[in-house]
């Protein structure tokens, strides 16, 4: 009962944060709202019995990929700047609401863990089961994915390297 209530609350918060994300004109605000949606999504993954996926959602999506987006936006100066920061009450309302929902759900999960209380009813993948499936049944997939990541790193380096300087010619 508690778990399903938390699921619907977090799903509503995720949808609200995503809607706010896709309607922003400032890309920095969009990325921050999407990070918030990923926090709620990580809690949903935990409720659905995937604690490792929840941790990786935080570490990889919110911590690495979205921060990479922020770096690129700031490096290319895509955010509209120059305006002085003004105190806007309207802008604070959705941020406060979403943060309170996430904080409340986290505190409730810490105090009374519904997945542990109803361990007979809800599915909960242990790290041992997960690791056995990943590295035993899907070992070939892990190899393929590692190759894919290597190719992506080489490709990103090649594309991002910039113009090759011509030998002896005038530097453009």
């Amino acid at each position, binding site marked *: 009962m508690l*778990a*399903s209530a938390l*699921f*619907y609350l977090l*799903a509503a918060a*995720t*949808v609200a944060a*995503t809607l706010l*994300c*896709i309607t922003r004109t400032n*890309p920095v605000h*969009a*990325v921050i709202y*999407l990070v918030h*949606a*990923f926090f709620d*999504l990580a809690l949903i*993954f935990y*409720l*659905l*019995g*995937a604690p*490792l*996926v929840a941790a990786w*959602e935080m570490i*990889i*999506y919110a911590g*690495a*990929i979205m921060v*990479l*987006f922020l770096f*690129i*936006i700031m*490096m*290319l100066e*895509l955010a509209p700047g120059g305006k002085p920061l003004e105190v806007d009450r309207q802008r604070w309302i959705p941020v406060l609401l979403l943060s309170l929902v996430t904080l409340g759900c986290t505190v409730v999960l810490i105090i009374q863990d*519904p997945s542990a209380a109803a361990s007979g*009813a*809800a*599915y909960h*993948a242990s790290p041992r*089961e*997960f690791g056995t*499936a*990943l590295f035993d*049944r*899907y070992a070939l*997939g892990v190899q393929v*994915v590692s190759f*894919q*990541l290597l*190719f*992506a*790193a080489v*490709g*990103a*380096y090649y*594309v*991002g390297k*910039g113009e090759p300087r011509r030998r002896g010619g005038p530097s453009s």
Partner: protein
Amino acid sequence: MIVPFAHVLLFAALLFVMGLGCALARRNLIMILIGVEIMLNAAAVALVGGSAHWRQVDGQVFVVFLMAMTSAEVAISLAMVVYLRRRRGTLEADKFDGMHG
């Protein structure tokens, strides 16, 4: 399963449609990539929900593959964003309509 499987799928579909709308409606390359991210997360929600529904760990393993695929895709596409910004000076998707062989 704490909630009906249909509700999880409905939530995933809602997220996917929002990501699709963002990728189709916005013309900034960064916002298009954010829409793709939202769609991939909707797929992850559906996979984890299926994993909880059938009580098999395979769905969660596929979410890990999905995350690795997303990392690769984001690395390449952000490198392309930097490259296009240097070469063309804009990130509006409508401006990239000519092929100069």
